[in-house]
């Protein structure tokens, strides 16, 4: 996220002196005008008035810098010769040798090395400075209009093998630059100057109309940096009410302003703005977002509670409520379980020590945790899986998958069995699942369930092809054999005979079937 880019300042002293003069003039004007145009005071926050330029270095500073540069250039002569060894040719650091990111690491590392060496007195050596190449033109010099004399120069002297003749590009020098030394810039010219990275005082635009004109020109120039510059000026000099009102009809500027406030973390003003615009959902989300930066769980919970009254959309509001309820519960569960674990009396915590705290975990993770540690608790407790399922309206599928995974992890096969068993009104039991039994097998197998357990569920897979493929994979021979029998597929059964152990019970069963005259084989 780049924040808007700025205007450049020019460092030539002439411009600076000139600049100062303009400012002085401005102040003078201002004093006169405040008397005559009192009505403008509404829009002008005079207490904050201060000459505003993009560059307020003054001549003294420039001179100081110049002398410092001079000193430095002398100093260069007494520079220590850095006899850094040649770089290694091969690197396993993962970066290609010679690339910049590789070199960053490399030189930093060698720097550490030299750090450890004892400091010897520096021996002055003469390092000749590189002669600056004056020929040719770089991109920026072309666009900044720095080309001396404005003559076209060909690129060919810098680009070794280009056969095309290149002329100076069309961006050479905008007309407006000739107006550098004219004082009275219109809003449009001011924006152009800012865009070209030059200084231009905004203070002279004092009427609301002028300010808005400035803003509109900035917007139509599409230069985010200039728009932001104008907005900062307006923010300083207009009352909030007026600024907000005017921004409302200028969507682009408004978005830049919102972005600017976000970037500078001016949360208060941002919320105020959004509220004024009636963008209540945005306000709510923005405020809600803040919870992410609160580390303490109790504070976070309280903060979430305060979010409940925010104007979310109906659905988001329900989610935020759930978020709060969940954290509230997690805090209670965490406190109880931590104590139980420390007490050392509860078997499950001894056998399977908790790896992490449950705080701030997603709901399903919390459910898994409770299915793991609190499976058989009565429905009334906070940590009871059934209670959680109820409170958060967890879908049947999600509940089953989670409970299955947790119980399978504990190898509590009876619980797994019970999960899928239902009784009909005649009292017969049968297995039912909201997920495909194929998925159930998958979960069980991942938790290394024994074949006896697996085959119960493989047998329940509805699609015969799928069932056979799973049964073969998990070596549930009975199921394979029975399925082929049901499909009346003699050939396949014959083929499978070769895959079971010689003289095994399975082989006998296959032989029995193959010899059975009652079956009408399809092949």
């Amino acid at each position, binding site marked *: 996220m780049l924040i808007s880019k700025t205007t450049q300042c020019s460092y030539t002293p002439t411009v600076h002196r000139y600049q100062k003069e303009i400012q002085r003039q401005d102040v003078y004007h201002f004093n006169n005008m405040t008397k005559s145009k009192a009505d403008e005071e509404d829009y002008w926050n005079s207490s904050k008035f201060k000459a505003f330029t993009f560059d307020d270095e003054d001549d003294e500073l420039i001179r100081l810098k110049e002398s*410092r540069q001079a000193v430095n250039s002398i100093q260069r002569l007494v520079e220590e010769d850095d006899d850094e060894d040649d770089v290694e040719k091969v690197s396993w650091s993962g970066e290609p040798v010679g690339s910049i990111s590789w070199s960053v690491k490399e030189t930093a590392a060698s720097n550490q090395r030299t750090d450890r060496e004892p400091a010897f007195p520096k021996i002055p050596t003469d390092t000749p400075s590189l002669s600056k190449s004056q020929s040719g033109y770089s991109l920026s010099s072309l666009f900044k209009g720095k080309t001396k004399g404005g003559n076209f120069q060909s690129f060919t002297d810098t680009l070794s093998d280009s056969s095309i003749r290149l002329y100076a590009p069309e961006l050479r020098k905008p007309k407006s630059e000739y107006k550098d030394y004219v004082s009275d810039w219109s809003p449009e010219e001011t924006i152009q100057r800012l865009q070209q990275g030059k200084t231009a005082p905004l203070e002279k635009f004092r009427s609301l109309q002028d300010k808005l004109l400035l803003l509109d020109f900035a917007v139509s120039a599409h230069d985010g940096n200039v728009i932001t510059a104008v907005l900062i000026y307006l923010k300083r000099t207009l009352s909030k009410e007026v600024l907000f009102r005017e921004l409302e009809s200028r969507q682009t500027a408004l978005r830049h302003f919102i972005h600017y406030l976000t970037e500078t973390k001016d949360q208060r003003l941002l919320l105020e703005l959004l509220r004024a615009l009636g963008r209540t959902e945005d306000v709510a989300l923005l405020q809600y977002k803040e919870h992410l930066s609160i580390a303490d769980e109790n504070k976070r919970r309280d903060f979430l509670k305060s979010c409940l009254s925010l104007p979310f959309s109906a659905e988001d509001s329900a989610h935020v409520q759930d978020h709060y309820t969940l954290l509230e519960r997690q805090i209670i569960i965490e406190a109880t379980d931590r104590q139980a674990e420390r007490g050392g009396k509860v078997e499950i915590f001894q056998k399977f020590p908790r790896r992490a705290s449950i705080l701030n975990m*997603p709901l*399903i993770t919390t459910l898994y945790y409770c299915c793991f540690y609190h499976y058989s608790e009565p429905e009334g407790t906070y940590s009871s899986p059934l209670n959680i399922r109820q409170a958060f309206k967890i879908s049947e599928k999600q509940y089953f998958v989670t409970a299955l995974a947790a119980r399978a992890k504990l190898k509590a096969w009876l619980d797994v069995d019970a999960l899928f068993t239902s009784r009909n009104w005649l009292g017969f039991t049968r297995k039912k699942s909201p997920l495909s039994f194929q998925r159930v097998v998958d979960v069980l197998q991942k938790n290394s369930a024994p074949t006896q357990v697996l085959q119960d569920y493989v047998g329940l897979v509805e699609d015969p092809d799928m069932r056979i493929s799973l049964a073969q994979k998990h070596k549930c021979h009975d199921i394979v054999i029975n399925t082929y029998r049901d499909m009346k597929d003699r050939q396949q059964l014959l083929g499978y005979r070769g895959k079971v152990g010689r003289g095994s019970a399975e082989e006998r069963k296959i032989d029995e079937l193959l010899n059975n005259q009652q079956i009408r084989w399809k092949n």
Partner: protein
Amino acid sequence: MAAHLSYGRVNLNILREAARKELREFLDKCAGSKAIVWDEYLTGPFGLIAQYSLLKEHEVEKMFTLKSGRLPSADVKNIIFFVRPRLELMDIIAENVFSEDKHHSSRDFHILFVPRRSMLCEQRLKEQGVLGSFINIDEYILDLIPYDGDLLSMEYESAFRECYLENDQTSLYHTAKGLMTLQALYGTIPQIYGKGDCARHVANMMLRMKREFAGTQNQILPVFDTLLLLDRNVDLLTPLATQLTYEGLIDEIYGINNGYVKLPPEKFAQKKQGEASKDLPTEPKKLQLNSAEELYAEIRDKNFNAVGAALSKKAKIISAAFEERHNAKTVGEIKQFVSQLPHMQAARTPCFPTLLKNEIQSLSNNSRQYPVSPVSASEAFFDNLTVEQEFMTGVDTDKVNTYIEDCIAQKDPLIKILRLVCMQSVCNNGLKQKVLDYYKREILQTYGYEHILTLNNLEKGGLLKPQTSSRNNYPTIRKTLKLWMEDANEQNPNDISYVYSGYAPLSIRLTQVLARPGWRSIEEVLKMLPGPHFEERQQLPSGLHKKRQQGENRTTLVFFLGGVTYAEIAALRFLSQMEDSGMEYIIATTKLVNGTTWIKSLMDRPESQTP
């Protein structure tokens, strides 16, 4: 060093040279020995412009990464900060400068902003009281970086988010500036076409900038005949789909950043079985991927199903010696298949192509018969693909999809879920409220409620939305633009749909139709897609009108605002190579993306997504 940039239709090395020259000029401005303190993000993009050797020639002796605290000591005269204009970086710089003054005295400080100076940043430095400590504050305009012989990227990651979520048009301004630079070097582009709001903005800015510089004519014979500006939000579908070209797949699995892929070290350990493992590399290795590597250039744009055949053909040429080497291996996981790639760097090693062959073949075979049980990585890959293709062909897009449901239950990575849900939404012109609510609920319950923020972002960006009208216009768009081709030929493609094994990227279809027969033939569909479509002409000085030779190809620069995928690039390269197309394409973009990086850029706090 960057010869691959000059082989294309347009010599992009000119642009690179110009950028290098400017860098040299800035470095020479700071006379004497230097240390560069890098905003780490910039090292990637800069790597495409210059190597360390160039910096060294200009007395850069040390390089550090920008970190808070004290600067490492270095006996240099100048400390130069290379940074993006971001406020948080300014605070770090201020800290560096402050702690510096106590320990050293005579080092000079400079800042180079990339790609633009920022008033806000300078204000911040001033507030921190360090602005006066800098001798030079300059900007390095790095708008369009040459990436390959036919490819330019701004490497501006947040462009889509800024344009469509935050409505910040700064990236568009940079785009327009970059295009002006390009025109300065390669001539005025006489025709500009565009589709989308951002495209319109960029074109407006370009025309305006041209007016501002009126009076001086660009005397360069135009290299580009046409510029096509395309908004990413005109085609939200394509980046969501899994890319199936070789390079696209590498990007999907390992991620390509700034032209480099980072491969885990274990990929290099395979050959030395039995040997002591202590010598094995522990850090990931980076490889550069571009047309400089001949073999890579040959296969990168092929459908992964065709890579095997291409390589085995190549293998026969190189060597037959290792033919039997990896026969024992049966299932190639996709990861393994791509992992062999490092050997590509050295295509001279004769075994490399054969190493790849078997894995790719087993992948190709797998894709024909859909796997039974979702266990292995490659099977999960094809399951995912099946669902994507169902959505793209319009099957059951109005219902809750069980595969997505299962993936959530399995806690698959959130981004994968979001990609699929968004895809379903786009292919259905919005989801039924009930379906949307169900997905949202499941996602928040499984991955955490804080993702409310991300879901809201996706809605703002138009990737996820409730159906507003009962009419779903996606089928009409699909049929008119022939987005789905039933039997795409992956081996010897005759249509761009090969890059997604059946799906022809919408963005590229628009490009193709523009070239022939023209957009007038698809007015109706253009109206269904967001944003205006337009055509502009830029006057050329009379002497510069091209006298076209018979049969000479025209050149179009296609600029994707908000990102482009490797598969789309492959499709455009395919069109360039078609004998009767008469058009060559150069591609430019704000950033090379894939579904994952793209969705990530739209998330709030993506780092908190890993459970």
